[in-house]
């Protein structure tokens, strides 16, 4: 190994989804914050077990939708009342009924785009590399493995204490992940 070897954190393997769920609860209660759970499939109740807060994505959708809708309505008002007033089939310039479809469409469009961006920002994707990939055991997370990972940046991370703690809550093959 070269001198630039870097420690990414620690991973521990668990037997079953149930064991992973209770491990997540214990990690949360022990005060770890920068840890993650890995399983081949979603596990009900994991969010609460890990102590994750509600995602802000919903509120982003609301704000982006309102902004998009207001923009759509303002755009149509400005084009058909201020900039280029045109009488269409004898209806008023500001025929709000006719503006509904575009307003609606821009609401949905902006909300959707906002949600996708917010989702990528909050979950940190796309990400082409992560230190856990140095662990050969870890590749099983997408097949039959259940893992808890603690990042080295966690306030409570300690090479000795964290290893002992992971083992005390039922983790096996606790491994310090390092690589270039």
């Amino acid at each position, binding site marked *: 190994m070269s001198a630039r070897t870097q420690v990414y954190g620690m991973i521990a393997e668990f037997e079953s989804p149930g064991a992973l769920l209770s491990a997540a609860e214990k990690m949360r209660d022990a005060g770890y914050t920068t840890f993650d759970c890995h399983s081949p499939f*979603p596990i*009900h*109740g994991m969010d609460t077990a890990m102590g994750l807060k509600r995602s802000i994505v*919903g509120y982003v959708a*609301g704000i982006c939708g309102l902004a998009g809708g207001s923009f759509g309505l303002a755009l149509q008002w400005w084009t058909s009342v201020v900039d280029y007033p045109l009488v269409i*089939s*004898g209806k008023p310039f500001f025929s709000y*009924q*006719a503006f*509904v*479809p575009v307003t609606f469409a821009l609401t949905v469009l902006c909300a959707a785009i906002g949600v996708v961006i917010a989702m990528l920002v909050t979950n940190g994707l796309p990400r082409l590399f992560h230190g856990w990939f140095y662990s050969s055991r870890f590749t099983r997370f997408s097949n039959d493995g259940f893992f808890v990972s603690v990042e080295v940046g966690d306030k409570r991370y300690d090479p000795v204490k964290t290893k002992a703690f992971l083992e005390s809550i039922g983790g096996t093959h606790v491994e310090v992940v390092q690589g270039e």
Partner: protein
Amino acid sequence: MKFDPATYKITDGGKFGRIMLVTGLIGLALAAVGFAVDREHFFFAYLTAFTFWVTIALGALFFVMLQHLTSSTWSVVIRRIVESLTAPLPWLFLLFIPLLFGLHQLYEWSHADVVAADAVLKAKSGFLNPTFFTIRAVVYFAVWCGLAHFLYHASVAQDSGHREEHRKRMRTLSAPGMIIFVITTTFAGWDWLMSLDPHWYSTIFGVYFFSGGLWAILATIVIVVALLQRRGVLTKEITVEHYHDLGKLLFGFTIFWTYIGFSQYFLQWYANIPEETKWYLNRWVGSWKAVSMVILWGHFVLPFGILIFRGVKRSPRLLMIMAVYCVVMHWVDHYWMAFPTLNKDGVHFSWIEIAATVGIGGIFVWAFWTKFISRAVIPVADPHLNESINFRNM
């Protein structure tokens, strides 16, 4: 009322059913007084009350078939409640009969002399005539009662031990049932409400009629569940997660109803053809304009703005308040569809509307309740019951 949590049966329904039956009969008796006082007003009031209740029962029928077709598991715990809410359909058929005596008061097309002098009505008379109208109504109710009956009995047959054929029967019945349901409901909407203004037409009216009913049944389910839980029934089985899902559906169908209602309005407003805009013009005169605004703001904007919040959907108390509000709005919607034909100059609200609505409603609730307490309150042998009880939103 006594509830046995071991067998999931309400062993003693108490006085509730009888109270509802008596309330219904008193309401109908008062409505009959209304008939003597103001015959025309009575029939419009009765029609409003009738379509209001019948759309709720139809919403229940649709909901049951939908759950079978999608093999939903979350809704298994509330399935028996919704199945029982289709029980009033045969009674509603009986309550439909008085309308046949009011055809002349309600429908312009029932007058032979008017039709003879009107080219449009003459052209429509092959469809809009009293005989065919009656036959169609009988067919609708035969279809609805039949579907409700078979679905209910397939479901209770499952209670004594699940076999795969039970589920298969309910699903195979629901698929063609859904198609027949859509056709009959569309025609019923045209017959009972759209033909009040026989020159006017809207191809989407049937969907509008149906969407309001579906919206109202979701609210009704919330109310029934919340009231049952207050009496200690199904307190552990129906959780906040089920309220959340019902709330989501109620929110979603608020938008669906609006989408349909706006589509109907928008095309007619844009095209600006007199025979089409007339219907909306009638609802823009005098105090009807205020009712139209109540529909827009109260049937869409307010429930949309409130039900969008997760906290409301996950609070049985708040959701119950919203549900009651939604049912009231559903009534206003039907009032708004029926009455402008009679009171062209503005709203003339009278006690007869209340009497008729309470009258039919009493019978409705009584029919639901007697059916509901006759069996276990959840499908006890359904293989998905456990999954449904432990269901959680992601």
